[in-house]
């Protein structure tokens, strides 16, 4: 009898609590995701753009009443340095409450951290690093990538530039895995396309003065200088070319295709060619909606060139968690099988190395903006590229 009384009392208490709203009804479980990218240093512009885009994806999902989970973003700064990258990757991977990660813009960091994610079993989707070895250099089922690789960019760069009439090249690349990879793939494809490299300058990514290198380049009289590096290197080279009197065309891979290069090089950026695995955001079906939502969210910084990839990586991960629950192994297995997934950056299809299959595009700096080559005045022959 005493037991029945107790049960009745408990039931009444629970009913009162529910009626007064003191106990949440069907509270959603919170699931943590990690975002890792360069949030400080010379490459922080694309890093912050990627972070904001991932944050936007999480905000939109949390505002969706049909979502099963509340997602919480843990943001970590890899400073574009491999040693810091390994530290923060270990921090994220060893935190079992983090189910998956949207990781890395810098290739040198991306390649340094793959072992860590594999060891801790944390599924990650790379959003910006383009070194092929990140996906093709191992068989870790934890590592996926939504953006393309420098193989696509190097091939397109070699074919496009030789077709434009540039035959004599100088390559200036940084000595990280990123710069060395860019040099390797560009050089290989350039040989096939019929171009000639007259000199290669491997340089430190932090080097500020290039006047000695550029004076040497001036002596060699190339048609084009190819930058295999990130924004700071591209800006410094462009700014110092005029000072030494080098009139060659400048081209660079997606590492320089961001607002930081345009701002840093100023008016001298005009006519610089770049290659990027993504199409212009407005060319994608959901592109305008993304830009509108981004503007509405009130972020101070641009999403930058790789922001849409970070956004797509985040939605891909959150959809996987919605389907199989917050379980690292199950999420990894589901991500591995991604085919024909409709995302902001188009359809995502992972190959057997969990690498999204994409083709690269050509861009040119025109009036302070990166313009899709087919839409540019350079393609329409209204403006001319530099040719010695």
């Amino acid at each position, binding site marked *: 009898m005493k037991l029945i009384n107790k049960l009745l009392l408990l039931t009444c208490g629970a009913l009162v609590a529910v009626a007064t709203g003191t106990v949440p009804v069907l509270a959603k479980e919170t699931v943590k995701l990690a975002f890792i990218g360069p949030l400080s240093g*010379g490459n922080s512009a694309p890093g912050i753009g990627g972070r904001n885009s991932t944050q936007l994806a999480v905000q939109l999902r949390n505002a969706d009443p049909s979502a099963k989970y509340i997602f919480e973003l843990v943001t970590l700064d890899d400073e574009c340095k491999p040693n810091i990258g390994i530290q923060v990757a270990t921090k994220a991977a060893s935190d079992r409450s983090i189910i998956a990660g949207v990781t890395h813009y810098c290739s040198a960091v991306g390649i340094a951290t793959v072992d860590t994610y594999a060891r801790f079993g944390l599924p990650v989707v790379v959003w910006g690093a383009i070194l092929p070895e990140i996906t093709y250099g191992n068989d870790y089922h934890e590592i996926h990538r939504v953006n393309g690789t420098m193989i696509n960019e190097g091939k397109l760069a070699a074919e496009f530039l030789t077709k434009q009439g540039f035959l004599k090249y100088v390559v200036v690349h940084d000595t990280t895995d990123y710069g060395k990879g860019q040099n390797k793939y560009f050089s290989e494809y350039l040989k096939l396309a019929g171009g000639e490299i007259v000199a290669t300058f491997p340089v430190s990514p932090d080097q500020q003065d290039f006047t000695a290198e550029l004076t040497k380049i001036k002596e060699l009289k190339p048609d084009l200088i190819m930058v295999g590096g990130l924004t700071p290197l591209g800006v410094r080279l462009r700014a110092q070319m005029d000072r*030494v*009197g080098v009139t060659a065309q400048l081209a660079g891979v997606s590492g320089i295709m961001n607002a930081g290069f345009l701002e840093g090089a100023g008016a001298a950026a005009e006519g610089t060619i770049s290659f990027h695995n993504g199409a212009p955001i407005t060319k994608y079906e959901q592109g305008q909606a993304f830009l509108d939502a981004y503007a509405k969210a009130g972020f101070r910084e641009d999403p930058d060139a790789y922001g849409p990839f970070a956004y797509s990586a985040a939605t891909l991960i959150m959809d996987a968690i919605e389907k199989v629950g917050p379980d690292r192994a199950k999420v990894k297995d589901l991500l591995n099988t991604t085919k024909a997934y409709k995302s902001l950056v188009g359809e995502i299809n992972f190959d057997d190395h969990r690498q999204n299959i994409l083709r690269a595009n050509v861009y040119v700096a025109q009036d302070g903006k990166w313009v899709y080559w087919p839409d540019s005045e350079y393609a329409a022959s209204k403006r001319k590229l530099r040719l010695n």
Partner: protein
Amino acid sequence: MDIGIVAQQLFNGLMLGVIYSMIAVGFSLFFGVLDVIKFSHGDVVTLGSFSALGAAGVSGALFALPPALALLTGLAAAVGAGALAGIVIGRILVIPLRGAPSINVLLATLMAGTVLREAIRLGVPNGGNPKPFPALLPSGMINAGSFSVGIDSVIIVCAGLLLVVGTHLFVTRTRFGLSIRAVAQDDEVARLAGIDQQRVVLGTFALGSGLAAFAGCMLGLYYREISFNMGVLLGIIGFASAVVGGLGSLIGPIIGGFLFAGVQTLVVVAMPISSAYRDVVAFAVIIILIALFPTGIIAEQRSERV
């Protein structure tokens, strides 16, 4: 090799040498008067360049100043901000730690440099990105065959050389310079002679830091691009140049600065593929020279301390 290209490489080395010397002289001044290494010196260079950019930009936008006036405003702001930073660092971190082990001052100033650097990165809009520096000097090129040099580059080199010589004259020929040298030689005797030691120390910090900030402004004008972390390597190069030249003397750091720039340029000229090793070779040369001349090329016992 084409003579024009050789001349251009010489000019490149000269320009780098002037910049390194201006930074190295500061290190030597601080060490001379107080036996301290101020490791925030490289970041004061950055502070100078950003102050110049801000002042030139704001005054140019508000009053539509001609480039020459905008440049003067920028220079004044750079030197002012640098000198102020030097006084603050000297007053708050260096003087109170005088009796402490020198490693404490080194660490404290290293941290102060990080604070300065991060303040620039976080305080300047999009401070993580490289910033374009306006072309405030007359444009135009001087061409002679394959040698071409901007008029602005010539002005920058001349201004730098004048400033280094001016600093030397200031320290050796003026009353305040005499006080600096007196404190550097023997601070106890200087105090007995009625020299206000704190004033001299802070004045030296203002002078050395103002010089570094001026170098920062010159860097902006020359490279037309500045970034929040540009001072880190420059600080190390300046320090290495001062040590190899003779920390505590005035001529030594200038020799050290030109030596470092010369080796860097020579490495690139000799072999393009070795470009990545230019700093490695330059620092290796510094190590060898330090082994050969432990107290610097201008040895302290034979030189008068600043």
